[in-house]
C-alpha cells in the first residue's frame, strides 16, 4: 500500500505544469528499470565512479 502512496506522490510531482512532458520518459524508464532489475542486467552497464544519479 505504501508503494501506491509513493506512485501517487510521484505522479502529482510530474503532473505539475512544467514537468508533465517528462511523464512519457518516466514510464519508459520505469519499464527499463524493472527490466534491468528483473534480468539482473545491472552488472552489464557502466559502473558509477561517483554517485550523482
Amino acid at each position: 500500500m505504501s508503494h501506491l502512496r509513493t506512485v501517487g506522490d510521484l505522479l502529482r510531482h510530474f503532473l505539475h505544469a512544467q514537468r508533465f512532458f517528462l511523464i512519457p520518459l518516466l514510464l519508459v524508464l520505469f519499464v527499463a528499470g524493472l527490466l534491468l532489475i528483473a534480468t539482473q542486467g545491472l552488472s552489464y552497464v557502466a559502473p558509477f565512479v561517483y554517485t550523482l544519479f
Partner: protein
Amino acid sequence: MAAVLGVSAYYHDAAAALVVDGQVVAAIQEERLSRIKNDPSLPVRAIEACLRLGGIEGPELDAVVFYEHPYAKLERVMVELVRGFPFTLRQFPRALAGQMGTKLWVLDQLAACCSVPRDRVRFCQHHESHAASAFYASGYDAAAVLTVDGVGEQVTTAIWHGEGRALRCVSEIHYPHSLGLFYAALTAYLGFPVNSGEHEVMGLASYGEPRFVEEVERLISVESDGSFALSLPHFAHHRDPRLPFASSLERLLGPRRARRGGWDLASEGDRRYADVAASLQAVTERVLLGLSARAAEETGEAALCLAGGVALNAVANGRMWEQGTWSRMFVQPAAGDAGGALGAALVGAREEGDPPPAPMRDVALGVPLDVGRGVALAEQLGLRVERVEDPAQVMAQKILEGQVVAQCVGRFEWGPRALGQRSLLAAPSDVALRERINRSVKYREPFRPFAPATLRSTTMFDGVDNDMTPFMTTVCPVRAEAREALAAVTHVDGTARVQTVRPGGALEPLLSTLEGMGHAPVVLNTSLNGAGEPIVASAEDAVAFLVSHAIDGLFLEDVILRRPS
C-alpha cells in the same frame, strides 16, 4: 513535544539522527556500524542504534524525515539524461535502475524499517537539511548560512538567512555548476578517489606552489556578486559516470596522475601535481570568499554557519575566518551528506513545534563503549589486560616515553573527525613518530598532516578562539616559538588543524595531566582507523585494531590492553 528521526542515504555517507523534544539525542553514521567506509546504504543499523539510545520504539516516532526530495532528484536525473543525450546513453540504464529500483522508494523503506505509518514519513530539501544542520546546531540567534556541496536535487550552492526558528533561502546556484564537483574533478585528475580523496588533495596543496592558478581559473568563472559558473567543456560529471573531467582538462593542465603509485614529492612529476593541488585550493578559497562576501551583504549578519561537503575544507574555512568579515563562525562537524540526517531531524522537530536544540558543544552522539566486551575479547586473544586507577596519568607517561597509544572512551563521535573518543595519540614534537604513524599504522601518504589537540587556554596557536576549533573544522597558524615543540603536528605551511578541548572533553584529563607534569598540554591526535576503514566504533573494533596495527597500547576507559610481551 515530539520524537523525530532524520535519515540520509543512497548517495554517500548514510546516517541517522534522533531528536527528541527538540534536543539531539543521537546521531550516527552507518559506516561506523557496518564497517564499510562511506557506506551509502539505508542506515538500518544506525536507525536501530539511535532508537535504542533514545529509549523509544519505532512506532513511537512522530516523524521520520528524509534529507532530500526523492522526486525532485529523479526529475533532475531525467532532465540531465535527456539534455546530455547521446553522451548520457551509457549511464542511462544504471541511473534509472538505481532510481526506480531503490532510491525512489526510500520513504516506503523508511516506513517499513521504523514500523511507522507511511504518512509519518516525509522529506525536506537537500540544502535545507544542510543549512538546518549548521544553523540550528550553532546556537546562534541569527546568521548567514552557506551550504556548498556537489549537488542536492538541483541546487549545488545556497545562501540562507537564519533568524530564530526561520531559515530563508536567499540565493542558489544550480547543477551542473558546482564547486563540489569542480573540486571532485580535480581530485580525480590528481589520482585520488572522488568523495573521499578531497582531504588528501587539501593536504597535498600545502606542498605545492599555486603556479597553475591562471589555468584553473579558466575552469570556473566568478562573477562580481560571488556567483560562479563552470566551464562545462572541461568537465564530464553531467554526462560520464566514470570520470568527472573531460580530455580538454588534460590539454589545459597536462596528463592526469595515475590512480595508483606512491607519491614522491621530490620528483618533478609529483611536484607538478602538488602545484595543481595548490592552485585548485587557491581558486576554491577565492570562490568561497566571494560567496562569503555575498552572504554577508545579502543577510547583513555578523555570524556565518557552513555545511555541505565543501565546508569540510578546513583551510578554506580558516581563510574565511581570517578575513574578519564574521564575528562568529560555526561549521557543522558532519558537514557532508551524513550531516543532512541531523538537519532533516531538526527541520522535522521545528515543524512539530519543538524548541531549538541546545548549541552543539559535544559530538559524542554515537554508541557508548562496552568495556566488558572488549576485555572479554582481549582475554580470549591472549592480550595483556590491566585496570588502572588513573588512566590519564599512565597514558601521559607513555606518550612522554614516545609511545603511540589509542584511547576509547564513552560514545563515539559524530562526523569524520576523531575528537578523543576514538583517537590515536602521541607526542606532538617527534617527527619520526609522525612518520611511523603514517607509514606503519595508517599506511597513508607522507604529506597527510596530523592534528594537535590542546586545552582552550593554549598560547601556542593564533586565532583559536572561535566556534570551529572544538570540532577541527578550521586551521590556525602555529606560533613561531612553538613550531619546534609541535613539529609533528605543524603542517608544511605553518598551520595546524587544532582541536581545542573544552572542560569535560574526552581529552581533558590527559591534557590537564600533561600540564600538571610541567609539559605543554598538547597531543598529536588522529583518528583510530586503518587505511580505508571507518573510525573504530565498538570496543571489539578497537581490540581488532590493536591486534592488527603497530601501536603500543589501547586504553578502553580505565583498562589498558597490550600485546603479549
